């Protein structure tokens, strides 16, 4: 599935415009702060109903505008079917439409649109940043793999927020029990999905890292380490989780927050047997994040049966020649790519099905391919 046309109106510094895209490589060239990344953000909005920058509606809306929208028409690879997805927003809400009909469940929207992989300089924080960045990476990928997972996440966050507030207000055990239960039900699923994902991701990413002669290891660090014994039923796992919560209740009350659970977990990454976060060089962090991103692309292609759309924001300069080649090799196989760069030479490669766009002062103009 690929984006044939994209129409932007009232977003960031972008001129209102309608663009036809290549089903292969789309290169956006321009100086800094001209709107290249804003255009990628608009694409992410059209596919995922949210900005990869986690921006608020107010930030996304063009100054002085009350409404904005992005409309993308997607083309299915073989069957030739097409759908049109539209996200409209005002300062407070986003509204999603598929083929002109409003969709009120985000899950229903995500099931219709292609998954997406974003790689930009901020992605390097997966290697070095706080645990929260890695959790967000895992959860985002889980939603990409199965959009209905968004419900589990929402359920967990809601229960957590309610439970934490109840803890701060000193609610008693019986009043708290229902929220504990909600937390347990969603938490067990969340833990299980993350563990399975880390295993799958680890295998693929390690294979890519091996091409550079380095051994990559991923492991999931759970603050509630369930035993996952043989023949354990779902009910057993919930009971185990519940007993962890119960044991931590005193401490949770003192601190006024739920001190253990998936919201406090981390993905631990090792390279050549040493912690990447503590000992990794800048170059190693880059290289590992690329391997993770390539693994992300592979997993999404397998799981969704449709290749993800790739957004690469100014990453050419981040990489040495070999890694760049490896990345482009992995991304360009029959996938639609949007890549931004300040200089074409940085990409330094020829692509088939390539379209060039010049980005200047918010205007994305067609340029004849050279």
């Amino acid at each position, binding site marked *: 599935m690929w984006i044939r046309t994209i129409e932007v109106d009232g977003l960031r510094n972008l001129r209102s415009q309608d663009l036809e895209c290549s089903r292969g490589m789309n290169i956006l060239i321009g100086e800094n702060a001209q709107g290249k990344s804003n255009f990628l953000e608009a694409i992410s909005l059209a596919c995922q109903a949210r900005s990869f920058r986690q921006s608020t509606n107010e930030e996304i809306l063009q100054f002085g505008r009350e409404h904005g929208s992005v409309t993308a028409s997607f083309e299915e690879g073989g069957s030739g079917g097409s759908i049109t997805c539209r996200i409209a927003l005002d300062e407070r809400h986003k509204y999603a439409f598929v083929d002109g009909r409003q969709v009120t469940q985000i899950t229903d929207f995500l099931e219709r649109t292609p998954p997406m992989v974003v790689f930009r300089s901020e992605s390097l924080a997966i290697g070095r940043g706080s645990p929260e960045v890695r959790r967000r990476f895992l959860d985002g990928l889980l939603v990409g793999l199965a959009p209905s997972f968004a419900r589990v996440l*929402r359920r967990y966050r809601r229960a957590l*927020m*309610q439970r934490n507030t*109840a803890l701060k207000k000193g609610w008693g055990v019986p009043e708290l029990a*229902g929220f504990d*239960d909600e937390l347990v039900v969603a938490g067990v699923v969340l833990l299980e999905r993350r563990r399975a994902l880390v295993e799958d991701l680890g295998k693929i990413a390690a294979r890519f890292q091996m091409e550079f002669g380095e051994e990559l290891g991923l492991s999931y660090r759970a603050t509630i380490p369930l035993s996952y014994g043989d023949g354990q039923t779902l009910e057993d796992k919930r009971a185990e989780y519940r007993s962890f919560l119960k044991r931590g209740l005193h401490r949770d009350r003192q601190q006024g927050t739920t001190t253990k659970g998936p919201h406090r977990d981390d993905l631990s990454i090792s390279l050549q047997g040493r912690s990447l976060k503590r000992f990794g060089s800048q170059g190693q962090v880059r290289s590992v994040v690329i391997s993770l991103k390539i693994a992300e692309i592979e997993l999404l292609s397998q799981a969704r049966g449709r290749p993800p759309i790739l957004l690469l924001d100014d990453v050419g300069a981040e990489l040495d020649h070999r890694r760049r080649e490896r990345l482009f090799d992995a991304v360009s196989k029959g996938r639609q790519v949007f890549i931004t760069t300040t200089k074409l030479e940085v990409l330094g490669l020829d692509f088939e099905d390539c379209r060039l766009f010049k980005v200047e002062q918010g205007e994305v103009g067609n340029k004849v391919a050279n």
Partner: protein
Amino acid sequence: MVSPVIQNLVNRLRRLPGIGTRSAERIVFHLMAAQGGEIAALADSLTELGERICTCGICGNLSDSDPCPVCGNPEREREIICVVEQVEDLYAIERSSQYRGLYHVLGGVLSPIAGIGPNELSIGKLVERVRHKGVRELIVATNTSTEGEATALYLVHVFKEDRVRLTRIAHGIPVGGHLSYVDSGTMAKALEGRRPLS
């Protein structure tokens, strides 16, 4: 320049659920063009609503009588009480015409964030009804939201020493779904397939 009389009514209508500026204006223009005392009839209905609607002292339903038509109906089964969050949910279940028992309106659900604890809900009154009126079964029909589920579980705790049987309204209602949006066919099935809470 818009007439302040029109603007005033548009502003009032806009505060109603599900009505935006555009729909509010449409309603006002419709009324202005309407013939045969439609405005007066509507005004009378609104006045009546304001003056005569009261809360049922037994179940918390809203109607023009206390006890409400459900509680006052001798045909209804008195040993079964269906516990709902809001009066709207009671109406949604009534629409299915499958249910012959009584109701109890909690007036909300447990929500620490919203500052709603057990004391803010009409749980004490429910306990009284169960203990003194020979209630056999409580069907807990709170919504399937986080708060609705948590409230259902809290009720299990409240009645754990009592002989009353607690059941939870069954599936067919989407998770996170709201009862008032459920069509009556789905609602009938949900009531039929209720499962015990423990």
